């Protein structure tokens, strides 16, 4: 691992509008290599919109995003994934009709090298690679802790395991920067603790993580740095300790003392 201060992803004056609503308003920040950076903020602060703009699912109104010097703005989602920037979704998102193992094998698309002509001609290299891909998919499931579920249909998994499967699919795409959108939303405390342990193991693979999360225990536990968004603007940027005691963050989350109670 190189120096953890090298910028991995830089977001420059990113602005996102939906009609008259400005979801993200000139936000600039950097994700440094090897760190876990969390984006927090009340609902509607623009966290998911920022995710969508970084990964090419929506076009920003202004500003740009670049990854290791390559401009991501204007690229399609699949091209961004090819560069090593892979995301998960806030709303649980798997290939429901496929087995757990096949879900991960779809995720291995970028690792796989088969070309259409070789496939149609039934080349031996394709069969060989298929075996290797299956082995690799199983080892990813083992890493995540879903190996016992490999042959089950994804739609038959309980919610907590679905959320793990999403991460398994993303990891299969060999991310160097992994964007997780509320990965522990709806999980119980034991499952959340399990997920935090998993995140530590993902970090050990030299994967940088950008996290959007509401579970403050998790955010404070795993983050190296936290950025707080409110109404599309960055209101705080610092270590977990600094954020915890930041007056403006507390106000954004809890409101002013007069209307406090949330």
């Amino acid at each position, binding site marked *: 691992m190189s120096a953890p201060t090298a910028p991995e992803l830089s977001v420059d004056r990113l602005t996102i509008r939906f009609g008259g609503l400005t979801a993200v308003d000139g936000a600039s920040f950097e994700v440094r290599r090897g760190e876990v950076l969390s984006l927090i903020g009340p609902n509607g602060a623009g966290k998911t919109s920022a995710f969508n703009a970084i990964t090419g699912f929506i076009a920003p109104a202004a500003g740009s995003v670049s990854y290791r010097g390559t401009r991501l703005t204007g690229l399609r989602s699949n091209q961004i994934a090819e560069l090593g920037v892979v995301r998960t979704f806030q709303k649980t998102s798997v290939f429901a009709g496929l087995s757990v193992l*096949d879900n991960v094998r779809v995720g291995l698309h970028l690792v796989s090298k088969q070309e259409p002509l070789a496939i149609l001609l039934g080349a031996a290299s394709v069969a060989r690679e298929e075996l290797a891909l299956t082995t690799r998919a199983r080892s990813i499931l083992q890493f995540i802790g879903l190996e016992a579920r490999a042959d089950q249909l994804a739609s038959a998994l309980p919610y907590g395991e679905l959320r793990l499967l999403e991460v398994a699919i993303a990891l299969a795409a060999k991310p160097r920067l992994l964007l997780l959108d509320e990965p522990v939303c709806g999980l119980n405390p034991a499952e959340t603790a399990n997920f935090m342990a998993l995140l530590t193991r993902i970090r050990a693979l030299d994967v940088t993580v950008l996290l959007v999360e509401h579970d403050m225990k998790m955010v404070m536990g795993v983050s190296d740095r936290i950025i707080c968004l409110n109404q599309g603007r960055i209101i705080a940027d610092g270590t977990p300790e600094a954020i915890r005691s930041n007056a403006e963050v507390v106000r954004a989350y809890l409101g002013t003392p007069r209307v406090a109670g949330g």
Partner: protein
Amino acid sequence: MKRIATLTLLAGLLSLPLWMSSLYVLHILIMTGIFIIAAMSLNLLLGFTGQLSLGHVAFFGIGAYTSSLVSLGFEVHLLPDWQVGLEAKPVWLGMLLGILLAALCGWVIGRVSFKVRGAYFVIVTVSFAEVVRLVALNWVELTQGPMALNNIPVLRLGLPGWFEFAFLRKPANYYLVLLVGVVAYLLIRRLVHSRAGRAMIALRENEALAASVGIDVTRYLVLATFVSAGIAGAAGALYAHYVRIVDPEVFSFIYTVTMVIMVVTGGKGTLAGPIVGGLIFGLLPETLRTFSIQPEIQWVIYGVLMILIVYFLPEGIVPALRRWWQGRRERQGVPPSAAVKSEASP
């Protein structure tokens, strides 16, 4: 178990003309086989990418017309003083060109549809089929319009001066259709059980997630339409040189509907589905006829059977059978992991 069943089926199909002397039955099997090939090609799109090509008969018809015209030769006046003609060419070349042109049209449709999905993909394909049908109907100089292309030569293979074999009789055509059918099946199976097939299924299951792991979804939709249209074109070429007359009726919407019925009742997204559905709905009308049932009643039976299948087996016959078989094994104590692997998954 599965291998034994496949080998038995193949042996039965291969030996059929030896013990089945009825030319009528062979004719029905040839026509059904041609439609099964077309249905298999439709299944690649509808079953695996999840996109319904409701103009699929266009590719079938393009294969039929191209192959016929190349083997008959033609001459058209594109401008008053500019005419383009083609000498009659061997049938095998016509068939190859028919497949190629159909596949190219599929490629174009795939490219044009790079952003349209669902209902919009249906509209693009239906419009394309209608345009092609109108061209076939109205460009009389090329296609003879409603007068139809007649006396289409049969396929002849051989080495010049050595020997030559004409696919004139029914058993020969039966084997030809069987061969093309097996090749089409193998191509589709290879595709489905590969990186490309998984990408197509990913498009069907969850397009946003597919893009997020780096799948260029459009590229694989184009590949699917290309291969699918090529196979449909092959079915059309077989049809043209077997029936030996082609008119704009080959573009009828009802043929697309027949293919969709075959795929949906058999089980879309399974390799065996279009074959099972195709056998049932290809052979049913003729079987009913042998019982000398009134034509109206025949169609009522056809319709009722179709509704019953769709109502009680919404996923199709093949997935239902597979689940029943799996359940039986599990009751017998075979662990679920050893159960028959689903074909719907890559």
